[in-house]
């Protein structure tokens, strides 16, 4: 059974936040919803877990007690210790008394927070807070785990530890949906949904998105030069140029696009379509 959104439409007043958005979330896999601020990522995830009701479309999700959700802010109690956060969540999720101790110990071990069990949630570093929040959402071994930007602003060491936790959940069969602004996190996912201004610009496996880049991508020398074409962007000291019909301008050499190029091309195509 696959979870997620199908043709979901959500509006805030007169502003349409999601237009017919489809996000399939399969068990045992990580689906990444990638896009910038205001793209609609949080709205997608809130609709997925049932925090808001779409106007149209279908949402498939397990019963509430089988969902783990971490919002983009907090996801833990700052005034409770790490241990108290675990105890509180274990009760809230109605974990059987006999399961609580061992499961809490397991989560402390997996999040690397055993040494910090007596510290207040609010006193942990940003990375530790995110790990605790994800750990709390995993406490009841959910069927669907939904994480809203768990790695934003987190340093690379904590980010790698968070992805180890996320991978571990998927490896046990959990369906995982993660929102992020980082393209390299999308590049590693099993499935990607690229969202901008509430619309899906591309979706599928990273390989499929890469294969579907239309036309040609080229590289032109930077260094004081103006944008070679309107469909160009900077990559390090060079320019990348996208020619939708395959006709690269003089001075640009054809380049095999990488996933980051593919995402920018999809965004440029979306911009042209608006």
């Amino acid at each position: 059974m696959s979870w997620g959104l199908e043709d979901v439409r959500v509006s805030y007043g007169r502003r349409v936040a999601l237009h017919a958005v489809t996000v399939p979330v399969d068990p045992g896999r990580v689906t990444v919803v990638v896009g910038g601020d205001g793209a609609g990522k949080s709205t997608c995830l809130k609709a997925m877990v049932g925090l808001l009701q779409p106007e149209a479309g279908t949402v498939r999700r397990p019963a509430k007690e089988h969902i783990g959700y971490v919002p983009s802010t907090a996801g833990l109690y700052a005034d409770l210790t790490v241990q108290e956060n675990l105890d509180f969540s274990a009760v809230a999720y109605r974990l059987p008394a006999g399961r609580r101790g061992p499961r809490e110990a397991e989560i402390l071990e997996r999040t690397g927070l055993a040494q910090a069990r007596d510290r207040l949630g609010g006193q942990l570093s940003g990375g530790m807070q995110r790990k605790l929040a994800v750990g709390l959402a995993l406490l009841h071994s959910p069927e669907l785990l939904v994480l809203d930007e768990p790695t934003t602003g987190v340093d690379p060491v904590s980010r790698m530890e968070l992805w180890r936790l996320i991978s571990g959940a998927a490896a046990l069969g959990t369906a995982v949906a993660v929102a992020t602004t980082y393209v390299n996190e999308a590049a590693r996912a099993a499935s990607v949904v690229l969202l901008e201004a509430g619309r899906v610009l591309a979706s599928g496996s990273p390989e499929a998105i890469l294969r579907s880049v239309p036309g040609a991508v080229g590289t032109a020398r930077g260094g004081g030069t103006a944008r070679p074409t309107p469909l160009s962007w900077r990559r390090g000291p060079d320019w990348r140029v996208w020619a939708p019909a395959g006709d690269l301008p003089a001075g640009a050499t054809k380049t095999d696009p990488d996933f980051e190029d593919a995402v920018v091309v999809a965004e440029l195509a979306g911009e042209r379509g608006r």
Partner: protein
Amino acid sequence: MDVLAEARQVTMRFGAFTAVDAADLAITGGEVVGLLGANGAGKTTLIRLLLGLLEPSDGIVRLFGSAPSAATRRRVGYVPQTLGLYVDLTVAENWSFTTAAFGYAGTVLPETIAAWRGELVGALPLGAQRQVAFAVALSHRPELLVLDEPTSGVGPLGAARLWEQIRQAADGGAGVLVTTHNMEEAQECDRLVVMADGRVVARGTTAEIIGGRTVAEVRCDDAGRAFALLDAEGFPAQLEGRNGVRVAGPAAAIADLLASKGLTAAVDVAGANLEEAFVAIVTDPA
């Protein structure tokens, strides 16, 4: 090109705590330097030292060839992660206020932000706010630009547009120092300086930082099981795509381990990416 800002063997102690430990850093006109490090590595303290906002316990700091002062600081543009804009003022009002403060009143609003002239900054999307903060920081034509996580929260195309402006400033001769946790952003820089525990532990281009570091790439039908086996053995592993696991560890030992558990898998050696190299460097600086 001239060295614009330089820290030579700079140390900063706060009581018994050494925040920056004999660090060297130099930024030359026309280049984009990325300053990387985990939280608490000393990046912010080093920047404050470079700008003369802190007096070093030891070592020498030079900003445009002399000790940092109010006069040299005027030649620096700084964009903090929080942007430093007035959210209750319009874009045009933010522009007038800042240009007047720097003694450039009457400077024309640049075309990159002109479309939002009458909008309140707080009502703009984050990508647009970042464009405004950049334009404002560049308004007095700074020779050194210091940017903290310049594209945080912005989508890939928005980030590319911001980098266009950063590159334009560097192409025009400015030196740029970028601090970031985002390894994609780091790869946009010409060279990188990596800090851990107050010390500079690596420096060079992305390729030089990665060096010969490799990871093992496991392909198999049951990637979940491969991940679980490797994870249980303490290997730092991550799922990759639908049938892959990426592991920091020796490919041969990983292949043997998976085979001993009866798992059929192809294990290849792959070049590490910058994030993997960074984690390896800062978790084991020796």
